Each structure stands twice: as C-alpha cells, then as structure tokens.
C-alpha cells in the first residue's frame, strides 16, 4: 500500500522538473512558483492519502480485533448443522475481518460422541460447510475457505453428558 504514494510523489517531481526545464529564463520566477505550487499540492495529496490509509488500517485492525474477540469456535445444536444466532454473529465478525485482508481460513467441523463415527464425519462436514456457505454468501471468495471434518475424533471435552457434548459440537476456524 506504500507504492501508490511513492509513485504519486515521483510523478509530481518529474512533472516539476519537466516544467523547470521547459521554461525560458524570463519565466523562471513564474515557473518556480508553479513548481512550488505543484509540489505543495502533491505533498498535500500524499498526506491525505496516507491519513486515509492509516484510517483504513486502523479500521481493519479494529475489525480483526473484533473477530478475535468473538473467538474462533462456533457451537451447534445436537444433530444440527444450522448456525445458531450466536454463531452467526461470530461468523459475521470474521467475515468483516476477512473481507479486509487476504487471509485463507480452514474450517474444521466436529461432533459429539453420540451416534456412529462415519455418520458423524458427514455431520461434521455439514457443519463446516454451513459456515463456509454463509461466508461465501456474504462475499468471501470460496477459494479462501477450506473445510475438513474430524467427526467425533477430536473432542475438546472428554467424557459424556451434555456439558461435555455441547463443547464438542463445533466448527473451529483456523
């Protein structure tokens, strides 16, 4: 993002030099004034651009901080691949951050231990795909989103019962 600024400066300088060289001795003062004016204008433009960029960087930093703040784990209901309201709000924050950078993400789908392993692999994929589809529908190019399912193989909470299970029904953004 620094390049356009340098380029603008360079163009304005070349332009000033050209103006100077083209001038006759009689026009020197006028030309000098014109050159100074051009330089000033270029400097102002550059400063404005820089300020705008800094604002953009700051805004993006804010969006990325917001995304980090909501966490990278989205939870699901039993045997469901629909995004809950909470999960949608979380994914929204990540979409906003991702639209402002070029990062690629990997979505890992997981399930709790109930049901069969192969079915759970499919269910985990469905969850990861649900997050991916939502991201793509909201403007993120699909090539930047990779999905994989681990089914019930990588629990966060070992042991049985809903308190453990609800922690394991998830999609992790990496």
């Amino acid at each position, binding site marked *: 993002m620094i390049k356009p600024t340098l380029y603008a400066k360079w163009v304005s300088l070349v332009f000033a030099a050209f103006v100077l060289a083209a001038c006759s001795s009689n026009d020197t003062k006028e030309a000098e004034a014109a050159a100074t004016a051009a330089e000033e204008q270029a400097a102002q433009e550059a400063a404005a651009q820089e300020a705008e960029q800094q604002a953009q960087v700051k805004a993006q930093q804010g969006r990325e901080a917001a995304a980090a703040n909501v966490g990278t784990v989205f939870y699901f209901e039993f045997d469901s691949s629909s995004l809950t309201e909470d999960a949608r709000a979380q994914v929204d924050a990540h979409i906003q951050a991702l639209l402002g950078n070029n990062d690629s993400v990997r979505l890992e789908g997981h399930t709790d231990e109930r*049901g*069969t*392993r192969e*079915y759970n692999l*499919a269910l985990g994929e*469905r969850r990861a795909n649900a997050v991916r589809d939502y991201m793509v529908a909201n403007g993120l190019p699909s090539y930047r989103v990779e999905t*994989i399912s681990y089914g019930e193989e990588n629990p966060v909470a070992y042991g049985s019962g809903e308190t453990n299970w609800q922690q394991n029904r998830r999609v992790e953004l990496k």
Partner: protein
Amino acid sequence: MLIRRMSILALLFFASNLHAELQIEINQGLDNPTPIAVVPFGWQGLGAAPEDVAQIIDSDLVRSGQFAPVSRRDMLSYPTREAEMYFRDWRAISAEYVLIGQVTLGTQIRIDFQLFDTTRQMAIDSGTVTGPVTELRMLSHRVSDAVYERLTGISGAFATRLLYVSVMRNPNAKDFYRLTLADSDGQRPIVLLEGRDPILSPTWSPDGQEVAYVSFETSRPAIYRQNLRTGAREQLTNFQGLNNSPAWSPDGNTMALVLSKDGNPDIYLLDLTTRALTRLTRHFAIDTEPTWMPDGKSLLFTSDRGGRPQIYRYDLRTKKIQRITFEGAFNARARVAQDGRNVALVHQRDGRYHIAVLDLVTDRLTVLTETSLDESPSIAPNGSVVLYATKRGQDSILAAVAVDGGVRFSLPAREGSVQEPAWSPYVTP
C-alpha cells in the same frame, strides 16, 4: 518408511509371549455351561513347549460363555493319549467332556487332539492341525474351533483375528492413534499404523490378507489399503472432502466408499483393477456407511434422506433404493452376518445408543445391549457374536454379545481407549 514398518512387523511376528493389550472379562455366560476338561497337551520337541496349547483352548471355550472350565488342580491324571484315559477320573470331578492331545515339533508344528464324552465313555472326535512353527497359537485356536463345532453344532470363530483402533488421549497435545491387529483372544497384538492423526473405519478384504482404513496423516482423510503379508501400502483415494467407510465387495474386486467431492456424502464404487469410480447415490442427504450383502448383489447404507438416519438397501441390478429400518429415530452402520439374514446395527432408544440385530426374514429388531453409547458393531464370521465398542468411564472399550443375547464379555484395554473393532473373515494360517 515402508521398510522400517515392515521390519517392525517382522520383529513383532516372531516375538512370542507379547502381552495382550486387551484383557477379556466374561460378564454373562449361559446358566448351565457344559463342564469340559482341557488336559495339558503333551510336547514332543526340543526344550519346553513355546505355548500352553491347552490353556489357549480352555480360554477360548470359556470365553464363548457356553463352557465351564475344569481346573488343572482338580484333575486326577494328565492323559495325553487314549490309552491313558480313565473315565472314572473325569466322572468323579463332573467333567462331561475331556480334550487331550499332543504337540509335535518338526519342520512344521502339529497338534493331534482327541475329544471324549465321559457319559458315553467314548471318543467323539479327533483331528490333526499342522502349520508353521510361528503359528502355534493360531493352530490351537483351530482345535478350539473343531471342539466348539463338535459340541454346539456351530462353526467356531476362534482362529480369526481382530483389527481395532486405540487412542491415547492427551489433553495437552494431539491424541495418539494406533491401528492394531491381534488374534481373536486379543493376544499377539501387531501395530499396523500409528501416529498423531486420526485412524478410522478399519476393514478386512474378504480373503483376510489385506486391510483398508481411513487415515488423516496428510491432514485430510484418505483411504488406504495395506497387505498384511508384505506390508505394502497404497493410498486409494484423495478426493476433496470426505473419503471414508471403505467396504470390500465379497469377491474382493470392488470397494464401496463414501466421497463428498460432488457436494455432499454419497456412496461410490471403486473398481480396484481399473480404478473406475461409479457413483451409486445422488441425494442431498448424508449417505454413508455402506456394507455389502454376502451375495454381493446389494449394499446396505445409512442415510438421513427421510429426516433421521435409517438403513437403506441399494440393489445393484435394479438400482432401486429401499428403506429397511422403521423402528426408532436412529438406525445406522449396518453389518450383515454371513448368512445374509441378521443385520447388526446401532439403534437409538430413549436417547441411548444400543447394538441391535435386525432379522431380515422376520423384520424383527432385537436390542442386544443395555449400555448407552454403543457403536461400531462387527459380526464374527460364524455369525454368533457381535463385537462392538462402548464407553466405560471416559474410555471406549470393546465388548461382545451373542446374537441370541445369552453371552456377554468385555475386552477393556490396559490403557487408553479402544474402538472400531473389525472381526476378520476365516483365515488359513
């Protein structure tokens, strides 16, 4: 890598007396098990006998739940040939049957055995099994099979092997996975593959010479086949999305599997010779867990096309799909017995997941287990026992139940979780 794995394999094959990873506990036997005395076998060879053959056979018969052992301490004599048999010695300790025999070491190893009925006071069976010296344990299991069949009328399934996945949970790092091959009694475990990436869905080729499984070692799931004799290993699939549930056709030429490369999980057939891929199901639902009917003419699979997971049958000739389970809101991962009649599956009832058997002739569904997180049923090649995984505390353990519900035993691991058992077909040692 391959050479290293093979050398480890070879080492393990010849290291005898390896501790079994699994212990066997009988939870429920028959009310009136038949008392049988398995007398210590004679040994003709250099040094001491490498294995206690009688002990192996005794454990097999006890594990079936249908026999009561007679302790060696109670035996009044240790005959190894018919001339040494005195029936009164055995009637005195209420042994209904007596098995004697001897082991002879030559270029190969041979077991001769004889089975006596103490009530009728006569030999009712005799036989000889011969094989490589390293396979004495498997030969002993073949004697168990012969005795079991003679006394129950059902083929034994002791001379078979198991595949299973064990997992060491590690809360601070990645879990550790191991695919193990062991004899049907859990002895002689051999590690086929291990690492920090999940291993799933181990399954047997119909000739028992190869296994297939899913490994995440490339950071994505892929299906592999591995030859047990040579150690040769080959990656069969590497598609975008799911690559899982490999199932060899009964003729060994085709593998059914699940891919989601076309959008969502569907059943495909992979021709193992031409590598041609045929898509069987086209549905936006989850179609998974294919398994073959023994005649190879149709497959069963799990689908939630009706809203909840149920078992469906795909007819390869007519290409018609027919739902076959109707009881309960969840029926999944079918495995069909060799007779083509009994289907073991995971059945949900009151929020609990049990192993059940569906009789395809009467359409009767019978729940076999009382535990609540049962999965991965695998039927013994003789059709009489279903091996499965269940939870005990935080760990998964293997357990088994007779198809008629009469006998139960569990096979907890010494450490870690054990899951996804796959019972081998009959193999010739």
